[in-house]
């Protein structure tokens, strides 16, 4: 015996049947009837109904594809960016290295020319370190006793005197700069030949002592080694006068600036002798 549907259920079912039948009729019509443009209505309706869905799916697809492509592209771009940055960094380093090598080459050539111009034996050395502190006044070089170095040898550059070796190990040495407060160099004012002593001030300058108030020393005068201290051969540039005035007592107050740029030293020349050879020995 068939189960009787509840009235409400029958109502709903009849509505669904109605909808189904109406749909079938519309479908039938659409299959047969053509639109004014000659197209079969079913196709036209399908197109009309389907187009928004297709457009939507295409839009979603395009967006998804675009997002995916952009994501992949961005990932690729990011990786490429990283690679390029790495490459740029490497090239920058290489360029800096190249520039440094070029500069070093120039400095070394200059130092070599200077060394060749000197009638003294010398050893070029690389500055490997500087004592901590801006004005510590010492630096380290990569030459030691195995290279023939010993304490109290003059250290110079093409521009002028740097200092002297104070501590020597087999493979390295410590150099006391002429600006060190403990350093003293026998000097002369090149223009007048007046002797004096240049003392380090613990700063970037030196004080030239023991020159009488009566002597004429001008700013810009070149100070050279006198050779009287037994360390530096005579005539090496030490610095230029930056300040010169009469002192309170007997001596003038003279301040000089080192001829060599002591803050930017990379290579130096260590003279293996403290005085010029005799005329007959040259």
């Amino acid at each position, binding site marked *: 015996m068939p189960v009787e549907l509840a009235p409400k259920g029958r109502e709903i079912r*009849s509505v669904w049947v109605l909808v189904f*039948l109406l749909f079938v*009729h*519309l479908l*039938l019509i659409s299959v047969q009837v053509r*639109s004014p443009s000659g197209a079969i209505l079913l196709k036209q309706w399908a197109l009309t109904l389907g187009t928004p869905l297709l457009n939507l799916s295409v839009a979603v697809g395009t967006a998804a594809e675009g997002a995916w492509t952009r994501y992949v592209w961005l990932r690729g771009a990011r990786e490429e960016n990283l690679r390029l940055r790495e490459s740029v960094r490497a090239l920058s380093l290489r360029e800096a290295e190249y520039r440094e090598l070029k500069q070093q080459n120039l400095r070394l050539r200059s130092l070599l020319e200077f060394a060749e111009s000197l009638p003294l034996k010398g050893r070029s050395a690389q500055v490997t370190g500087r004592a901590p502190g801006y004005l510590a006044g010492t630096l380290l070089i990569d030459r030691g006793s195995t290279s023939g170095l010993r304490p109290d040898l003059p250290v110079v550059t093409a521009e002028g005197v740097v200092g002297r070796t104070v501590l020597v190990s087999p493979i390295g040495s410590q150099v006391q700069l002429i600006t060190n407060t403990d350093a003293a160099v026998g000097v002369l004012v090149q223009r007048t030949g007046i002797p004096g002593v240049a003392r380090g001030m613990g700063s970037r300058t030196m004080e030239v002592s023991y020159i009488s108030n009566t002597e004429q020393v001008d700013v810009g005068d070149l100070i050279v080694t006198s050779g009287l201290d037994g360390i530096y051969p005579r005539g090496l540039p030490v610095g230029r006068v930056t300040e010169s005035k009469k002192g309170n007592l007997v001596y003038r107050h003279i301040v000089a600036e080192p001829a060599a740029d002591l803050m930017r030293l990379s290579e130096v020349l260590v003279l293996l002798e403290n005085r010029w050879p005799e005329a007959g020995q040259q």
Partner: protein
Amino acid sequence: MKYLVLAASSLLVVVVQMIAGRIVFLFNFLDLSLLLIAYWALYRNRMEALFAGSITGILLDAFLGWPLGYHGFGKTLAAFALGRASKHFTLTGRAIRFFAVGAASLLSSASVFLLLLALQRSTEALFLGAALVQALFTALVAVALLAGVDAYASARAGGVAE
């Protein structure tokens, strides 16, 4: 079986409609298929009435040479409306029967007319006028026929009781 009867009766109604309409002009204003649908909706089963409307409508289209579906759509709607009316109202009085059948006929014709309009088919205002006349005439005949059915049913019920 009952759907076979339904299909056969629908076919018979449409054939009669065609033949009668050719012989007697007035029959062109009588919607016999709607009478069948009304009978099914009011006396038989509302669900079956929906199928009766669909089948008669499709057959009508087939015989008229119209694209299948126009009359099927209209007659199905009419069957549904009549079924609903019979559920919510007591359609035993002549006046209400007249009104219900007439409204269903108008609904059927109007839906066909709207379909034609929607599908950009050529339509004439005459169609609506004819539909109105058809609705009145069909409703009138339906009231008479259904009264006959009622009388037959009550006579049969009386016979069975005796």
